[in-house]
């Protein structure tokens, strides 16, 4: 398939293809981080993760409209405001959900799965009633939509860069939070021994709520960022859910590093396969390989071997 192309063209294509893989990787990381925190640290399966993302996207849509009407001069930077608000909105909803729903089900992980699926249906219907059944068009500031020509042939999409920077930024912040902050210490303590953590004075309820909130908040930011590359509609969240879960499970629950490594592996596999095969087959093969590996190594890529 590469016959008849100059070395320069091929280099350019491979560079851009590598970059496409990195963008996909960043997208996966953003999708999965929030879920990984919630699943890994709390053992809760949040099937409404996609809907929390879409909440972030709708917040972005509202903010963009507000800026367009009231602050047109500042439109080019509205996105940053939108991301912060998306984080707060999804985070707040997450904490509310934790309070009303999740905390009653900590001992029944399969039931949280069903309950959050129910929640996702409700959220979808609410979005539909509020924003209409159709997708909304989120206007992205012009500077974010173009591409940076690196050479004559290599062009780098700015929104891709933005997603990458965001993914790195959020990963680093989460890492810092988990391993440098008091909250992180408490979360890890609770994860290891809930009763003991409670006994030594950690407010497990508050920490849980905060953890769930942060996980959902990150989903909101991801959703906000994805308005640049995807659609915003009541059911758009469903598009991400299978990929997201596979990334988290493949990485091994409880390991944020594993999630990132798994996002990298899956994204590269998919991106390379998509280049050489048709899109549908690439997707099927990627999923099959992931499921196959999971069957051989159910604990995921990076789970620790622990003493029972």
């Amino acid at each position, binding site marked *: 398939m590469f016959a008849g192309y100059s070395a320069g063209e091929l280099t350019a294509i491979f560079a851009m293809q590598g970059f496409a893989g990195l963008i996909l990787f960043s997208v996966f990381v953003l999708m999965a981080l929030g879920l990984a925190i919630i699943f890994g640290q709390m053992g809760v399966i949040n099937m409404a993760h996609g809907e929390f993302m879409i909440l972030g996207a709708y917040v972005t849509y509202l903010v963009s409209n507000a800026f367009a009407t009231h602050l047109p001069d500042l439109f080019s930077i509205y996105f940053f405001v939108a991301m912060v608000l998306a984080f707060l909105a999804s985070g707040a909803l997450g904490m509310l959900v934790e309070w009303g729903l999740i905390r009653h089900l900590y001992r029944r992980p399969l039931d949280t799965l069903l309950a959050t699926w129910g929640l996702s249906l409700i959220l979808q219907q609410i979005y539909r009633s509020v924003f209409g059944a159709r997708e909304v068009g989120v206007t*992205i500031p012009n500077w974010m939509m173009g*591409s940076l020509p690196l050479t004559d042939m290599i*062009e780098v999409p700015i929104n891709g860069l933005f997603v990458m920077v965001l993914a790195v930024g959020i990963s680093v912040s989460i890492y810092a939070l988990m391993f440098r902050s008091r909250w992180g210490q408490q979360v890890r303590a609770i994860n290891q021994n809930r009763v003991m953590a409670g006994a030594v004075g950690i407010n497990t309820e508050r920490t849980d709520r905060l953890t769930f909130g942060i996980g959902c908040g990150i989903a909101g930011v991801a959703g906000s960022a994805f308005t640049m590359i*995807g659609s915003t509609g009541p059911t758009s969240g469903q598009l991400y859910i299978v990929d997201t879960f596979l990334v988290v499970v493949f990485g091994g629950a409880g390991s944020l590093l594993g999630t990132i490594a798994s996002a990298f592996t899956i994204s590269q596999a998919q991106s390379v396969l998509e280049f050489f095969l048709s899109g549908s087959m690439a997707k099927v093969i990627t999923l099959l390989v992931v499921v196959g590996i999971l069957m051989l190594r159910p604990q995921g890529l990076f789970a620790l071997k622990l003493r029972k």
Partner: protein
Amino acid sequence: MTDFSKPTMPGMSRRAVLAGGAALTASLFAPRGLRAQDFPTAAVNTTGLAVTDSTVTIGILHSVTGTMAISETGSVQAEKLAIEQINAMGGVLGRKIQFIQEDGASDWPTFAEKARKLLVNDKVASVMGCWTSASRKAVLPVFEQHNGMLYYPTFYEGLEQSPNVIYTGQEATQQIIAGLDWVNQTKGAKSFYLLGSDYIWPRTSNKIARKHIENFMEGCEVVGEEYYPLGHTQFNSVINKIKLRKPDVIYAIVVGGSNVAFYKQLKAAGIDPTKESPIVLTISVTEDEIRGIGGENVEGSYACMKYFQSLDNPNNIAFVDAFKKMWGADMVIGDVTQAAYLGPWLWKAAVEKAGSFDIDKVREASPGIELPTAPEGYVKIHENHHLWSKTRVGRARADGQYDVVFETADLVEPDPFPEGYQ
């Protein structure tokens, strides 16, 4: 409910025949149309449909919930508008149209179930409905078994011709061929990259496009053909492949949420449709879809349709006004929405031509029905139950509307089983 047990009055049949003849000669849009008493219920409804002396009931069957609700909302709105307008003009054979709306819920078995309900329980005189081919395929046996009449609005892949369906949208050749010829002749395009969501309509359409490009367009070639699962949101790899192949035209039949992702990523990757290098040509993006994608992302790409909201003719201006008045000033109207609007009108015309609500008579009367008042201009029902209509090419503007840059001189004949394209 209709009282079907009403005894037939003597001499009824002769009067009915006379009345039918009157309807034939009556103009289709006679103001304050026909009077119900000229068309006694027992005569115009011999098969027990839901027709009373003052009303006739039809069904609307679209998805209000689920993923397809996004697309089908416009169709529902257009059908309701048409029904309201027809009622304001005096109804059909003097009877007001009532409608029963059912939700297909984006789920094909549900469509079949609701179709059965409409036909068997509600005895509706016709059904305006369905959007996806899958939903139509699911209800088709139901309509054929219970002898209903479906007005199906979506442009689709063809390969079908049912006596129980009137296809008010284009079949594939009507949408594809003229557009390809146009881009070849006016833009000099020679190489095409075909891309689509992975299901039957894009695959069949691309098959027709490929046959046309390879067999009927001199010196033209297809340099790539790709399909992505419905709902796919990552197109960077295929965009790179497109860059590698450098086609003159990207022929895109991507649908739904994927559409949004595709155009945003295309633009971000430096393929700005306004530069027309390559040209982006699509048959899956109407004004409706642009709302979700964002006009600035699609601007400059070309779409092949039979209808654009910006069509400048009196019919359309009145239609757009009425639609916005009924559903809000910020509404947009896409190709399918207009086709859905035709449904009730075509049915009314056929009923009045037949002088009867009976399905068999309506079917018989349908071929040859003309609708000079259609927003898209003049249309006519073909023997094969599809519509003669024009093919148009529009260029997307940043505000989400299309500038019509080309239209075929004549109506294009529908050909659901095109020779040489199989």
